[in-house]
């Protein structure tokens, strides 16, 4: 985990306040004495007394400021505690807290003792992000001195994608292994009855079906004569291998005006990469919970795939890899598709705004894999648009629809991931339909 930012407070600097109060109080007192007006002395007396009170304490030393307990909560909010151990003689502390995508807030708090301020910021986006940059300054009692302002942070936090619940999932055309949660077509150790067959070498004795044996032995022979033993054979179980392929080369928001990089993406808007991470994490969790093996390939970093494996730790490995995936460098053409395990189901998560991911999916399909394309482009915001904007959006949608239609023609199944509540419903419905198409596998 990244170390959270902490820093000492700045050195003390004098202010003009004591001189100003001395000028006011002393000037009035002097004026009163010269002109023989005691009321002017009384008018200046509080300033001198206040100054004397302020000068009783000399600010000194350094304090310590830190951002602690940085965390991402379930309500899509990032929280942290801003703490300050003020230097001796402090009275007030000024903080300017900013965070990317947020307006800053200025805080002035009492700092005669330790300070702890709970902070929060919107955390809809996932991946590696920066939060809470703080500029802090302290003032002494009576504003006699103030510290030089110091910068603290920002704190870095990797926000992991959340996982949703998915019920039924499509499976690859060939299941692998001798154990697992799925029923294969092969004969083996499982629960579902395959057939009743004559006993042969290698059959276990406890699989002998005595009723069937007696029934078959009784035909045309004397009652009570056992000839051929018969056994109950069952379907073997097997597990599926699923390879998640994330297209991290695009990270676009639903506001198309930000695609050129001109505007800033609003912090409340999940981008296509956030949706893809959430979809991939949900799929990985669902498959791994079912006992299957899941691998992960990031098209932005083709050289470092995660090999298919199972278990809870593997899920954490995939989720962290998802969070770390981010567009880096310029768009490079992918020369050849990453290797896919034999008989694996390939799930490609992409915006399909260009042909790269679609070509890869079609290539895998031609190699005989079952390929599922999950489109993760965020929906358009419902705001009035000009005719030109409408035309632009329509062109983008038509291009993408054409691309997906071409994919479907090659045999790739397509599903759309939408950011709706519950956010997995659209994908879950689509996956359910796909899961029903093929019930039993080789």
């Amino acid at each position, binding site marked *: 985990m990244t170390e959270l930012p902490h820093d000492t407070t700045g*050195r*003390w*600097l004098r*202010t003009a306040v*004591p*001189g*100003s*109060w*001395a000028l*006011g*109080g*002393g*000037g009035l*007192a*002097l*004026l009163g*004495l010269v*002109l023989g*007006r*005691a*009321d002017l*002395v*009384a008018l*200046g*007396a*509080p*300033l*001198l*007394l*206040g100054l*004397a009170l302020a*000068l009783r304490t*000399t600010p*000194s*030393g350094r304090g310590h400021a830190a951002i602690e307990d940085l965390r991402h909560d379930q309500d899509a909010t990032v929280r942290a505690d801003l703490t300050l151990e003020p230097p001796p*003689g402090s*009275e007030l502390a000024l903080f300017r807290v*900013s*965070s990317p*995508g*947020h307006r*800053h*807030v*200025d*805080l*002035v*708090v*009492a700092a005669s003792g330790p300070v702890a*301020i*709970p*902070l929060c*910021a919107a955390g809809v986006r996932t991946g590696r992000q920066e939060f809470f940059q703080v500029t802090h300054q302290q003032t002494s*009692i*009576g504003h006699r*001195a103030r510290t030089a302002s110091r910068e603290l942070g920002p704190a870095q936090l990797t926000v992991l994608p959340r996982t949703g619940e998915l019920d039924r999932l499509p499976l690859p055309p060939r299941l692998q292994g001798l154990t697992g949660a799925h029923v294969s077509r092969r004969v083996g150790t499982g629960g579902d009855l395959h057939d009743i067959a004559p006993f042969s070498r290698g059959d276990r004795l406890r699989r002998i079906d005595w009723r069937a044996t007696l029934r078959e032995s009784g035909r045309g022979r004397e009652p009570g004569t056992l000839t051929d033993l018969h056994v109950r054979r069952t379907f073997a179980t097997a597990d599926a291998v699923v390879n998640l392929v994330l297209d991290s080369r695009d990270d676009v928001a639903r506001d198309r005006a930000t695609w050129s990089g001109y505007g*800033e993406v609003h912090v409340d808007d999940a981008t296509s990469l956030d949706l893809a991470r959430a979809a991939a994490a949900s799929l990985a969790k669902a498959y791994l919970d079912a006992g299957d093996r899941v691998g992960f390939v990031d098209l932005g970093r083709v050289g470092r795939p995660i090999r298919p494996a199972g278990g809870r730790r593997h899920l954490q490995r995939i989720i962290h890899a998802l969070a770390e995936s981010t567009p880096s460098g310029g768009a490079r053409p992918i020369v050849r598709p990453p290797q896919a395990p034999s008989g694996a189901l390939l799930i490609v998560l992409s915006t399909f705004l260009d042909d790269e991911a679609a070509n890869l999916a079609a290539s895998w399909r031609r190699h005989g894999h079952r390929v599922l394309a999950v489109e993760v482009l965020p929906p358009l915001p*419902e*705001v*009035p648009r*000009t005719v030109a904007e409408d035309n632009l959006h329509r062109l983008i949608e038509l291009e993408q629809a054409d691309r997906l239609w071409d994919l479907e023609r090659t045999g790739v199944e397509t599903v759309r991931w939408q950011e709706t509540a519950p956010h997995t419903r659209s994908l879950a419905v689509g996956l359910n339909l796909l899961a029903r198409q093929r019930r039993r596998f080789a």
Partner: protein
Amino acid sequence: MTSPTPAAVSARQRARTLLSRLAATFGFGTGVTTRPLPVVGARIGPWVPVWVVTTAMVAMATVGAALVVQGWIGWAVLGGIIAVLVRFPEGPWIGVYAVAIGVLLLVSGAEPFASRVFALIALVHLVAVLHSVVSGLPWAARLQLRALRGPLARFAAAQSAAQALATVGALLTGAGVTVPWLPVVAAAGLAAVAVTLYLRLATDAGPG
């Protein structure tokens, strides 16, 4: 406070976009609207914006001016000082304001220890205290109410002593008591206070 529903947000966004486009047709702005960014959340307990305290300070400074000013020249001088006080917080302006109030009090021909002097003693001091708190702070900053406790406690302590001093002075003046050596003692006392403060301010290594 509950957050607005998505429908309300959408309607608000739609209205903002239409207004922006309407303004753009008349040459104001570009017509491009962006949603307002959220503010970083922070919990500091009860607070007031700094501009409220600044406004209160200006109001008190104006009331103090109204007690002594006669004629537009006085208003111009004090109005200018108050404006500079707000605009340039780092400077000797609070001292200049206090001295200007004293001079205008003399010019107004008020009797020594008239009733408004007692109000001025409190007002000028309070203006100085609030100015020391808010000087240099952004107007939109959130000022924790607890942060005012220390300055106001010192204000109360200094005021009680100053008001008592003023009351004694008023009683002596009202009773016609004349103490020939009082100016000498007062001058000596004032010199002692001035030297003490000067030494404290000058020789003290200052804030560490």
